[in-house]
């Protein structure tokens, strides 16, 4: 399984901080985003946002990054710390 985490605005608007999804063959971060966008309008809006960031195994990456079972994938908005 792939553990998918959500932070900040996403976590609040999706009313969840994590879900598990089943890996498919040759899966990428973009596949996960698209799969989640199909859930409903709220998910679609958040997953298609231009500003959406994705990390795999706690490292920011792009939408072509491959994902395998056991990976930790996180979606979040631009960071605002400091």
């Amino acid at each position, binding site marked *: 399984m792939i553990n998918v*985490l959500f*932070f*900040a*605005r996403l*976590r*609040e608007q999706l009313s969840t901080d994590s879900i598990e999804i089943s890996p498919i063959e040759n899966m990428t971060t973009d596949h996960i985003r698209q799969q989640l966008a199909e859930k409903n309008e709220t998910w679609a809006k958040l997953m298609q946002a231009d*500003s959406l960031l994705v*990390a795999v195994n*706690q*490292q*920011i990456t792009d939408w072509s990054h491959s994902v395998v079972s056991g990976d930790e994938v*996180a979606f*979040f*908005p*631009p*960071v*605002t*710390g*400091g």
Partner: protein
Amino acid sequence: MIFVQHNDFSVADEYQKLCTDNQDGAIVTFIGKVRDFNEGLGVHGLSLEHYPGMTEKVLSNLEAQAREHWPLNKVTIIHRVGDLTLGEQIVFIGVTSPHRKAAFAACEFLIDFLKTKAPFWKKELTTQGAKWLDAKASDDESSEQWSEKLTK
């Protein structure tokens, strides 16, 4: 040394730990505090969320990058999470070096990249409710300018 913590930090204690080595001629510290970002909205605090695990990795990596660019001795990065009220301390960056230019540059580099790379998110608590802060274009510019500065 990197700390992500709920508790407040003591600048006095952190300075004491930073100032012990006689080879260091320069100590630069930056402290960021909760201030009223949106004047008039009645901000009374912030709620700070982060991505446990990733935050520490990003900050360690930034420290390593700073050490590649400048001759640094001690580096301390502390960032608080959770609910903070107006005027409270959020972040501490302390850097020591034999050379002041290195200490200034590294300290500013660390806070610039912390702001654009470390997974923290601020929610402003105002009298009109809570509101996630948007990332600032000026912060992106500040960190982008480093690649130019460092290749000069």
